[in-house]
């Protein structure tokens, strides 16, 4: 969609060869999965659960400022780990190979208002299959933002920095809304569709449970610390929402990441699919702790190439993937978190304003965006 296609120098055979080389990397990791990987995810789960329990315990005394601070910080970290390194990755089926029914994509439920069943559909199926395809990938601008110069500008886009900020603060609700495809389904003709209503009820039940836990029962158990615990759980959810929103923005939004038009993926081959994932994702560089807290989505490129590999293996395949980018003269978009967040936000602001008219013949995506 950008003026210059950064993959134009690759022949069809080269793209298929690239696909075979990526398949080989994948096969090696699959063959090497074993005890250490299983021990890793069990350890993360155990640490997360103990941290959450301890933090909630400390928050029972949140009327004392040090307890509030420690408890809130601990609960924020626990919630981030639960959603990112554990929930997201388990729901991808990254750990299904262990055959442990307690750590399995078909049985897992996460600390999130979107029921895992619905999230798996919109994320694993739609986002990962149609990555960065305008009109097909709801993650791209979440259906509320202009994400590419070629999209027609509309005055409503002036507000998109604000929408994006609000979405960041209440990100889990935003996700639940687009897992439900609310934008489309609230239309009069669809509102009464029984299938939609059943899914909406499931979301309602999940929200009720989550709200009861965080904002009623836990504060009530805190007795005189009621209001302080309420503020603490709200803060922890806010921190988790803003953090995961930032990480996810860094995955597909920074400058240098490509978006694609619908027609470009018709009849796409395995190699072309890989290439789209390579060009449509961006990494975050940082320490091991950083990778853990992002659920290894800091290795977004590797994750999009191999969504079902155990997350602890992305760091190991990253140098080999990067070498392929160099071999095929492609840009591996990566940078530290502040830089990538800044880059993504700058794009949000820049595209909120009109730019020069797209070149004649450039496709008009307004219709698809409305449909999204």
């Amino acid at each position, binding site marked *: 969609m950008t003026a210059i296609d950064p993959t134009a120098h690759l022949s069809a055979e080269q793209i298929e060869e690239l696909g075979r080389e990526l*398949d080989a990397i*994948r*096969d090696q990791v*699959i*063959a090497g*999965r*074993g*005890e*250490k*990987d*299983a*021990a890793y995810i069990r350890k993360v789960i*155990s640490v997360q*659960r*103990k941290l959450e*329990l301890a933090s*909630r315990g400390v928050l029972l005394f949140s009327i004392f400022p040090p307890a509030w601070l420690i408890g809130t910080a601990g609960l924020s970290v626990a919630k981030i780990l639960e959603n990112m390194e554990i929930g997201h990755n388990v729901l*991808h*089926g990254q750990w*299904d*190979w*262990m*055959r*442990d*029914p*307690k750590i*399995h*994509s*078909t049985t897992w*439920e*996460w*600390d999130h208002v979107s029921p895992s069943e619905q999230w*798996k*559909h919109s994320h*694993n*199926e739609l986002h*990962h*299959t149609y990555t960065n395809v305008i009109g097909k990938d709801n993650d791209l601008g979440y259906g509320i933002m202009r994400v590419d110069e070629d999209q027609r500008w509309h005055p409503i886009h002036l507000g998109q920095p604000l929408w994006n900020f609000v979405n960041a603060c209440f990100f889990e609700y935003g996700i639940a809304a687009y897992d439900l495809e609310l934008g489309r389904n609230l239309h009069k003709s669809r509102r009464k569709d029984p299938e939609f209503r059943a899914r909406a009820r499931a979301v309602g039940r*999940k929200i009720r*449970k*989550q709200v*009861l*836990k965080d904002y009623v*029962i*836990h504060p009530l*158990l805190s007795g005189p610390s009621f209001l302080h615990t309420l503020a603490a759980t709200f803060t922890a959810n806010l921190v988790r929402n803003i953090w995961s929103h930032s990480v996810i923005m860094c995955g597909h939004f920074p400058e240098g990441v490509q978006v694609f038009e619908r027609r470009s993926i018709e009849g796409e081959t395995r190699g072309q*699919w890989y290439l789209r994932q390579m060009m449509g994702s961006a990494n975050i560089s940082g320490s091991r702790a950083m990778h853990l807290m992002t659920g290894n989505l800091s290795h977004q490129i590797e994750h999009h190439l191999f*969504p*079902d590999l155990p997350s602890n293996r992305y760091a190991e395949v990253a140098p080999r993937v990067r070498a392929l980018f160099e071999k095929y003269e492609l840009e591996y978009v990566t940078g530290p978190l502040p830089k990538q967040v800044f880059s993504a936000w700058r794009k949000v602001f820049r595209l909120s304003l009109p730019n020069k008219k797209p070149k004649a013949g450039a496709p008009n995506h307004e219709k698809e965006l409305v449909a999204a």
Partner: protein
Amino acid sequence: MTSAALRSRAWKLLEMITTPLLPSDYLDLVSPLRAGADLRGRIEAVHPETGDAATIVIRPGRGWRGHTAGQYVRIGVDVDGRRLWRAYSITSPTHRQDGRVTITVKAIPDGKVSNHLVRRAKPGTLVRLDQPAGDFVLPKARPPKVLYLTAGSGITPAMGMLRDGGFDDVVMVHCAPQPQDVIFRSELHGLVADGKLRLTEVHTDTDGMLDVSRLDELVPDWAERETWACGPAGLLDAAEEFWSGHGVRERLHTERFRPSVVVAGDGGVVTFSATGKTVGADGAMPLLDVGEEAGVLMPSGCRMGICFGCVTPLKAGAVRDLRTGEITEAEPGVLIQTCVSAAAGPCDIER
């Protein structure tokens, strides 16, 4: 309010706090063997028996109901990070004081679980357990005359019964390649020395396979004995024929662990047992396509092995991963991605 009702209310409240998890998910972290937990056991010791067999001492969880001598237990062991389930005979007596149970495992060639348990299992490891099962057991009233006809690891359920004791007249005919391959040999010889057992060892490396008709000479009163036989299919088939031929089939009890061996082939007949459809499939077509073409309602998603939207239980048979060639065999709890799996021989998909 009764205490039971109070407890159930308290539990409901706990569930509201731990949602989306369950209270047990947290309790499992500190007390995996407690009452009410999924049944587990902790390996406490591994004692080598022969060069390729070992006895595993397991402390079962509080929910363990106890076994009857001769029964087996299904055990779920994580091997290379993958949970695999196998059944092993319990070799400890039912009245063991410390409440531990033992299984005795012989490592078979290419046996993933047996080799792991014999050679790599470490004390402290948690395993999943099922309640003991099986009707290859001693009746409550001990028969006056008993014969055990066993071979290889087939001695394990017999040992479980022998250790329970209370016999007047027991004879054992046991086959093993060489003397040092006889599991529990010194304990058996101790029983012989105490006059509690008559034992005939058949060393098949030197004596050849046991011809069941030799029992006439080894145990002349065999037909009067309540007999328990456990070993390879060949031995059991021959025994059944022999006992039937003499009209005393009801005196023979047999135990077979592997009723059928899966032979992974290329393609095969696919049964969709929930819908009752059966179709032939080649070894290249994803089972998802096979099912859809047969009109079975198959869940599906990305159709390329990514989203795990299509996972389905494999009830029987084997499938091949079209990406890696890896074979997956049916076991309880095994789910396969139908979009990237093809039939590797006859198989049964639960749709």
